[in-house]
């Protein structure tokens, strides 16, 4: 029963990792950009949520009404103002610029909010649980997982059934031809980044409810998200969810052996999959 419980908790935490990863997967799919500051943006969203809650008194999940559009607008501006200038074949400029952004965000947050660790209080949501024949599931992890499934389903729908998704796919396949058809690739990229940071906002709020956060925990979240993307296979959003779940379960099993092994076990699972299936479990596109 213990083992079943550990696996179940791992699956649910995997939902959070899938939320970390979904935005990463989306922007890589559309513009082959790997954003090193992705994790720091998740932490930024958590701090913005904290401020919104402080000023408005809203409960954390309702604060999303503000945090999602703010982050999405920031994403649009970031892409149009800075990141678009770095795209164009060469690998280094986007990597370096997002690395610089990561250092700026970490130290900016440190300067404004100090290094104290914070947490969002979601009240009864944090302790409530559902029981199924001897198994007990926390309401918060269950909600997190359900949100991840809903976000990925929504992204999937958007990608394959809407005009915006068609623009994303066309630009991803061949940006120049897409421009000949009247798309402005800089705007398409900016919309993709806006959508990505909207998802990042949701991930940031759940992160902040579930555990303590501080200005320096971004890189760790980036790595979890990245691992989920690679395990699941590039370009496959449902695969990314599976990747998050595998990572969550591996960490749970590792922690059960020895608390110091939690994160390491996740990395080891990632490296094993990389060794056996270099393109991930369910790849849809090439790196």
């Amino acid at each position, binding site marked *: 029963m213990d083992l079943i419980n550990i696996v179940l908790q791992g699956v649910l935490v995997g939902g959070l990792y899938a939320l970390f990863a979904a935005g990463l997967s989306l922007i890589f799919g559309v513009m082959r950009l790997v954003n090193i500051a992705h994790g720091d943006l998740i932490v930024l969203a958590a701090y913005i949520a904290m401020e919104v809650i402080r000023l408005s008194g809203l409960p954390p999940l309702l604060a999303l009404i503000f945090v999602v559009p703010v982050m999405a607008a920031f994403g649009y501006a970031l892409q149009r103002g800075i990141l678009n200038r770095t795209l164009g074949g060469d690998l280094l400029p986007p990597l370096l610029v997002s*690395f610089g952004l990561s250092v700026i965000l970490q130290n900016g947050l440190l300067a404004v909010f100090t290094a104290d660790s914070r947490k969002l209080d979601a009240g009864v949501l944090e302790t409530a649980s559902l029981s199924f024949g001897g198994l007990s599931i926390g309401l918060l992890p269950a909600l997190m997982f359900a949100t991840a499934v809903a976000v990925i389903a929504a992204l999937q729908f958007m990608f394959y059934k809407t005009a915006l998704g068609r623009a994303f796919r066309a630009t991803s396949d061949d940006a120049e031809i897409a421009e000949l058809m009247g798309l402005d690739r800089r705007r398409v990229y900016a919309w993709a980044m806006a959508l990505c940071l909207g998802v990042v906002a949701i991930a940031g709020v759940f992160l902040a409810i579930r555990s303590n956060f501080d200005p320096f925990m971004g890189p760790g979240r980036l790595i979890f998200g*990245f691992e989920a993307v690679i395990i699941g296979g590039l370009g496959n959003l449902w695969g990314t969810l599976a990747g998050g779940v595998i990572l969550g379960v591996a960490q749970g099993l590792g922690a059960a052996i020895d608390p110091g092994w939690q994160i390491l076990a996740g990395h080891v699972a990632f490296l094993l999959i990389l060794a056996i299936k270099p393109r991930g479990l369910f790849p849809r596109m090439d790196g």
Partner: protein
Amino acid sequence: MMQFTISRATITSRIAGVFALLLLAVLAAAPWWASSSFLHLAGEFAVYLALATLWNLLAGYTGLVSVGQQAYVGLGGYITFSLALFLGVHPLLAIPLAGLVAALVAIPVASLVFRLAGAYFAIGTWVMAEVFRLIAAQATALGGGSGISLPATVTKELGGKWLREASIFWLALALGAGCLALVYLLLRSRIGLALTAIRDSEVASTSLGIRIGRVKHVLYVLVAGLTAMIGALISLQKLRVSPDAAFSVNDWTAFVIFIVVIGGIGTIEGPIIGTIVYFLLREFLADFGTLYLLFLGTLAIVVMLAAPKGLWGYAAERFGWSLFPVGYRIHFKD
């Protein structure tokens, strides 16, 4: 028939060469004329110069953008401490051994991370460094998560205070100048020709018969070994290793990348200029704490967007300067 001559060196490069040798001689005598704080600072300068030169060799020439070089810095430190503490190896002898062991470790690591392409390779190397850090934190014999200091019995093997400071400084100087010289000679050789070709176009160099995969693999392992030797030196400079400091992504990779990009990637001179700029900034702005890091991050972004070839690349293009000639110049008569 057109008359022409081919040369490598220029007047600037000859003057620079003589100047560099003189500088090296003056610096080698520094333990006799300088204060220990100067030795310390110069040693740190050499460490960053060497790390930047090596990272530039990887990223600037073969496009292997690693953000996980701290894996080898930390590994070098931990191997050195293990050899000195458990096997009684003399700390100075432990440095080359650390390089050798790390190079051996890098062979299987390379075959894993090379499965990831482009930007994902970068983050893959970072995961590898995290794995090393977490394993080091589990090593209870080496102090676990809080790290360990080199006991006085071992530090005594390095001699008294003056001799210890002097020998660590000489080591730093040797590694700094050595890495620079190695990269210079490497780039002038046959392999250098291949590396420069890969830098300019991977497709074209494959068509000319360069085995890109093998060149990259060998280079990655070589750089890993040398980076670990620098890590070993850093551990002796600090006389302490801890997982978070030894495997710090900011200290050993982010700053190094900023140095190379600000100075000019894909040139030998770039990392030198970048290191000088970095130390000047640090000396003047370090009192401002986080603001200094905000400024450094912003500067790196601005340079990347405005002058992607860095300060040296900009100057070299504009004035035709070259301190370390690795190419050939053709001079036509009349």
